Structure formats: C-alpha cells, structure tokens
C-alpha cells in the first residue's frame, strides 16, 4: 500500500485526471470516472433477493436485463436514509466473476460532471486499514471542496465477488 501511495505521490496523480460524475451520500461528496458509467436512472421498484449481503438491495429490470442494486450507504456503513425524488441509481460496468457486468449503485443524489485535472488530485489518505484504502483512487479538489474519487472496480466488483464467497 505504501509503495502504491508513494508511486501516486511521485507521479502527482498522473493520468487520473479526467471527467468525473459527482454524487452525494449524506454530507460526503464522491466522484466516479464517467467512462465507467452506463446510465443514471431514477429510483424504481427493487425485487429483493434472499441470502445476499445487506448492502445488496436486490435486482431490477433494466430494459429486459436483470441487474443487481448495491446500497452504497450500507456498503460504507452509513446510516440509512429514506428514498426521495432525488435518489438515483447509477449503473456502472465493472469486472465480475466472468467478464464485465452491470451493477446499479443507489445514491442520495447526483450532482454534475466535472473535469478534474491531474494536479488537483491528491493521493488517497492512508487510514492504516488496508482494505478500505483500496476503494479510493484519490481525493479531487474542486472549487475548494474535496470529492472522494472512488475506484468502482474495487468498491463494486470485488465487493460482489468476495461477499458471494462468504455465502458458500
């Protein structure tokens, strides 16, 4: 982890710059690189699936395809909030057990797409816990505010894989 952090530090967040979609969970603001995003849809009816971890809310019908929905608040151990008209599902493409899969993330609200330059991205803070550290690519600074840039592949992709093995 230290080696990775040093690398990012020395390269000054090289290559991480680009367009990010920002969204909020409670008081925190997050960002995801837009190339990973398939689409954004409003909250819709979710069919619960038994024997899945709590943060997997269930599945929905997205134009004929069934995709799982991850409740991000729960995933990050935050308090749950009631859904309102601003609640959205961000559908992303992540690597799954066998190829790319689409997963929806439930978020409080979606803000905007911003362009974050390389130099405005700081390396992720080292909290000392190895696992959580991997979820964050870096911290982006926009107009004085800090956005947590998520590594979707890790947060969603690996979460799904490892949670399902826990089931076996």
């Amino acid at each position, binding site marked *: 982890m230290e080696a990775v952090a040093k690398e990012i530090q020395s390269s000054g967040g090289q290559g991480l710059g680009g367009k990010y979609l920002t969204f909020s969970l409670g008081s925190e603001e997050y960002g995801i690189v837009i190339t990973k995003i398939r689409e954004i849809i409003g909250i819709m*009816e979710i*069919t*619960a*699936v*038994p*024997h*899945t971890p709590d943060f*997997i809310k*269930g*599945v*929905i*019908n997205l*134009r*004929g*395809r*069934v*995709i*799982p929905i991850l409740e991000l608040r729960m995933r990050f151990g935050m308090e749950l909030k009631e859904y309102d008209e601003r609640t959205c599902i961000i559908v992303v493409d*992540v690597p*799954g*057990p066998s190829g790319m*899969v*689409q*997963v929806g993330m439930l978020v409080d609200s979606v803000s905007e797409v911003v362009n974050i330059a390389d130099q405005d991205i700081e390396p992720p803070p080292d909290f000392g816990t190895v696992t959580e550290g991997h979820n964050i690519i870096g911290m982006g600074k926009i107009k004085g505010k800090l956005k947590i840039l998520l590594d979707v592949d890790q947060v969603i*992709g690996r979460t*799904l*894989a*490892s949670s*399902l*093995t826990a*089931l*076996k």
Partner: protein
Amino acid sequence: MTDIGGSAIAAQLDDMALKIMMVEPGDLSMVGELVVLIEELQELPGIEGYPGLQRMGQDLCAVICKIVMTELPDSAENYERVGQCIGLMQEVYRKGVDDVAESGFDAVLKKMEQESDNDEGIADTVQMNASFAEAGLVSISQKVENQAQATVVAAPQGIRILESPPTESMEFLQDLELLTGFVGETLEHLESIEVNVLDLEENPGDLEIVNKIFRPFHTIKGVAGFLNLKSIQKLAHSTENLLDDVRNGVHAMDSGVIEVVLKVGDFLKTMVENLNVVLHEGPEQYKNYDISDFVAWVEAIQRGSVVCRATEVAPPQSPAVSATEVSASAVSPPPKAKIPPMATSPIDNTGSSPAAVAKAAVLPKASVGDSIKVDVEKLDGLVNAVGELVIMQAMVRSNATIAALSDPKLIKDFSQLSRITSELQKTAMSMRMVPIRQTFQKMIRLVRDLSKKTGKEVNLVMEGEETEIDRNMVDSIYDPLVHMMRNSVDHGVQIPDEREKIGKPRSGTVNLRAYQKGGYMVIEIEDDGQGLNTEKIRRKAIERGLIQETDNNSAYELNNLIFLPGFSTADKITDVSGRGVGMDVVKKAVEKLRGKVEAISSPGKGSLFVIRLPLTLAIIDGIIVRVGTERYIIPTTAIQESLKPPRENYNTVQGKGETLMVRQAVLPIIRLYQLFNVKPTYTNPWDAIVVVVEYEGRQRAIMVDELLGKQEVVIKNLGGLSDIPGVAGGTILGDGRVGLILDLAGIVQSLSGHGAIEAHGSVDDVDLTGD
C-alpha cells in the same frame, strides 16, 4: 449445516475430472486445457480455505508440465495416475479433510516422477502403437536411422512444440479477418476429411471419396500459403501429394494411408485451434509446432517405406508380420488377411460399420436447403432483442389504462400483435438450435479408435442425428456422451470370443439415439453387452455404507447408484475409462443443463442410458406463486400437484419438523417465507396453498400464499449475482417486475440439516453433493 449453495471448487474439480478422461497420449492440447483448469482452480475465491487442495493442485501442475516437456513419459499410465490424483483431490475436498498426506496423493506423484524417460519406455504411446499394429507394420526398434534407401523411419511419438521462438514472422496476424475465416473454414474441412476418411476405410476402392479428401487438403494448403502459415501449408502439401498419388493409382489405398491422413488431420486441427487461441488471447499464445516428424512420416508412406515403432501391442509372431510390407507396387486391395489377429481389423465388411453409418449420415446433408453463415454474436443479439420485445409487448398489453379501453378494434389489433411477437420469438429461438449430427459424428471416430484399442468389435448405429438441440448445450453434452460411450465399449461390450461363447454375434452394437419427446430432448445410449452387474453394485454400495444388507432395493435403484460420487465397480482401472472418476461427473454435467440421466440394465442383455434435456436453456415453463409481496417461479417439471391442505393432515415432529400428509405420503413442509425472509399473508399451512415438488426422488410440500398462473418465462441470470442458495435465476414478469426462479436442489436440500423425515432410508441421507 448443509451448505446449500453450489460450489465453484467442486465444479472446477468436476471439470478437471472430465478433462482427464479426454486426454490421450500425444494429445498435448487436451493436457494444456487440463493445466489451465488446474490454474483456474488456484484462483477461485475461497480456495484459501483449502491449503491442502492448493498444494495438491500445484504439485499436480508441476508434474503435468514435466510430462509436456517430455521429462516424464507421455504415457497412458501416467495419465491414469493423474486421473487418480484428481479423484483424490475431489475426495479431500468432499471430506473436508485437509490431510493430504493421508490421501496417498504424494505416493502417486512419486511413482510418476520415478519413471525416467528412457528410450524403451517411450514405446507405450498406446494410441500410435495400436494403429500401427493393425496396419500390419513391423516393429524393429524405435530410432533406427537409415541413410540407404531410407526404408525405415521413426514415426512421430506425439506432438512436439519447438521451444525456440518462431523464426517465421507472424505475418499471418496482419489480416485478422482473413485468419478468422481460415480458422473456421479449415476446422470444417478437417471434420469433413475425418468423416470421409472413415468412409474410405470401409470402401477403399471408391475414388470419389479420395477426391473428397484431396480437395480440402488442396484448399487448406492454398489458403495457408496465402496467409504465410508455413507449417500448416507444408504439412497439407505433403499430404496432398500422397493423396494425389493414391487417386492416380500410383500408391495403394491402404490402412497406412488411412492412419497417416487421420493423424495429420488431428495434428492440423491442433495447429488451427492454436491459431484460434492466438486470435482470442494474443500472439504470445502462438505455438510453433514441429511438423518435421509428421512430414517425414507422410513422405515415408508415399515412398512405400515401412514405418516402424517399438510397440508392446504388436503380437509376438513378428516374423509372419514382416511379409506385410506396404509396397508401392501393390495396387490391389489392402492385404487385410495378413493383418495380425491381435488387433481387430477395421476393414471388416461383414457388418454395418461406423463408416457405413457415417456415409448414411453424410448423405442427407446434400438435400438440406441453403444455409448462410451468421456471426454468433449477431444471432444472440437478435434473440435477446426479440426476448425484450416480447416482454415490452406484454407490459404494454397489461397496462391498466390500455386495458380499460374496451375498443374492439384495439383488442383485435393487440391479439394480432401478440401472435406476431410469439411467432417471432419461436423463430428466433429455433435459430439457436442446431442438429445434434455434428456431436454424433464425432462419436464415430471415437468408437472406431476405442474398439481398436480394446480389441472389441463394435457397430455404432445412430438414429435421429437431425434432432435439434440448443447450440449452447452442444458443447456441454459432448463430454458426458463421450464418457458413456467409453463405458459401453470398455465395460459393456464383451470381446468377440466371449460374445461368441454366450451365443451373441461377435460384434457388439451400440445404439446412439436422439429424439424429442414431451417437451424434452432425449438421448439414448444402448449397448447389447453384458449389462450392469447389479450384484457387484449392491456389494460396493453396502461396502460404502450407502445401503444396508437388509435393504430391499429394486434393480433400478441399485443400478442408478452408479451415479453417486466416487462409485466405480471397475476391477482394474483401464486406460480407456474408469480413471478413478465415476458416472457422478456425467450426472453433474447433465444436471448443469437442467437434465436428468438414468441407467436401465438387463444383466447379460445390455445396458441403456437415457439422458433427458430441456429443449432450450433459455426458457423455462413455470408456475408463478406469491409469497407476501414477492413473486417466485417454480419450474413445472418439478411440480407434482398443488392443494389447499386440510388442517387434520398437518403434523409436527419432535416439535421442530413439520409434515403434511398428502395421499398417504408424509411430506416435510418448507415455509418459503421463512427461507427467503419475506412477510407472508398466511402463516398457517391450512390457510395457505401447498405445492408438492419432487427433486431427485425426494418430495417436499412448499407453502406459498397464492398461485398466480402458469407461464413460459425467459431465464435471466441475476447480473453479477450468482450461486444464491435456492435461487436459480430471475425473469421479467408481465408487469415489468423481476420474479425469482426457484432452484429446487437448494430448496429441497435446505431441510436436510434439520432432521426432516425422509421417505426412504439411508440412500437419501447420503450427502449427495458434498458441496
């Protein structure tokens, strides 16, 4: 507690078991695939919980790599030991024991390592030897160099890969589209070559068949040359020359030619398949195969030289055999009379033979209508789009506002619309169906090679090759079919002398049938051999604690015990089958396709294996049930009946288990809402509806709130979620919401750990999956 989820590790071990059964000495591509499977095993999530298995996998991999590098002999014996090792790995996993040393795994590996690669030892590539033996060729010694007149040449002992980086530049990668086309077409050519060669074997004098083999070689040579695939071009060219000599009468059409053409075909297939891998995975996967041995062999045959091999299969009376030199001067029909009695001659025109049947199978091809080639991805895309169309159409139709409009014309139009959509869907689905002919035809070669190896005479009779099967199932059904064929030839059919003794015709018959019945696709393998030894099975089962001495099991029940894991009554593990892995692997493969397999046998008369598969994997016929606000689909094939149970038929057992009496049978009750953590409308079985299901002979009464209807639904997998206990997949219902499809295996087994009452004794208590 019983683990009711599926397990990737068990599935991977099963795939490895199936793969080792397919490996033949000399077949490095299969060995390569096995190595890939072992490597995948090491990457599976959860494998860290089995350090012993990981270690076994690594060690096994290392040993197999040594075989590939020819540090250890590429022999049937060694592959048999690899099979034993895989079986041991399965046992270690099943028992949950991590004590590898106990399993004797290391001992087997040690035995393999001790055999060193000495010249005499190499002589046991049985495949090559058997074929040479029956071609009546003399064996002198293995590497005899001969400058004078070059009459003696060592035949290739398997496929070698040049270790040095390829000197030819990989120009063929410049035009990927052309290369892809070449790969597809060449594989088709090679298949037709194989069928025609087998046909030619039966009709050596038929020149037209020789032409049919000559032409594709010529084409392959041409295109390969154009693409700068030097090895393929050279090999095809040499073979084309040989065939040219044959069709011009310069060289006799004999078993030597047959053998070499078949083997060249196999080698070319390996090379072309490697190209396919390169196309998918990158140029670093390219293997530069060493064709020099093969080219030398082809040229030797062409010159009329005698090809020799040290062989253990050759009969002791070698001097007599020396007279059977394949000479260029003999234009007459092949000297079949001089072929040593040990190996059964393939050129036996006394009975209907595989090749004759192959001819019959090939003929109908000409009369089938025009066809075009379509990219599979486009086809799948079309089928998916049609599927979505059907759903949307249903959604629009059930829209409340529209339903409220009672315009007669609108109603009529909607009817028409749904009829057209239905038609469209049927057509789209049928496009995914392919005749099972191709799979069956591969069996011809298999049976021919098997009967030679085992010294038995076997006729393969095929029926129903035109029966269609979903293309996604074709690949998965091949391995189980192969295993069962091997069983029939190896264990079922007796050797000709024995058959004669008991009054049967010297050649055994294996019937391979396919037909559609009752919404299912049925495949039957029937042989007229000795049948299953029910008594032996019974004793083995008692030995393994599966049944008691005092149990009264029917012959049918006993025979179907062979599908349990680790069950094999073979006295000796032969090279052909029974590599320590049993019919349970076949059963699992069939069940993965949502099918069923059963064994029916009459001792002395023969055995019959019946595989039943759903017509397509994509659609399932189910009953929609409601539990609370959730809806689930239960496959109709599992449902026996549904009823509103009377209160007096309800009982509890020991205060924990609940049962329901249905027509004299006492069935355990499963409260679906409890299993799935849903809030139901009814909590008393007598207020609710009960659906009686059956899975693998076990019955359960599933409690639901309401039955909503019967429907054919398209199965969708649940996005990134898989292996959810009790849930087989999802589907989109008419109102656009997702409904979960129940996995009967998971549901029925969910009670096993809770002391439920079983209908029958001990067989049911066996943890069949061990997963």
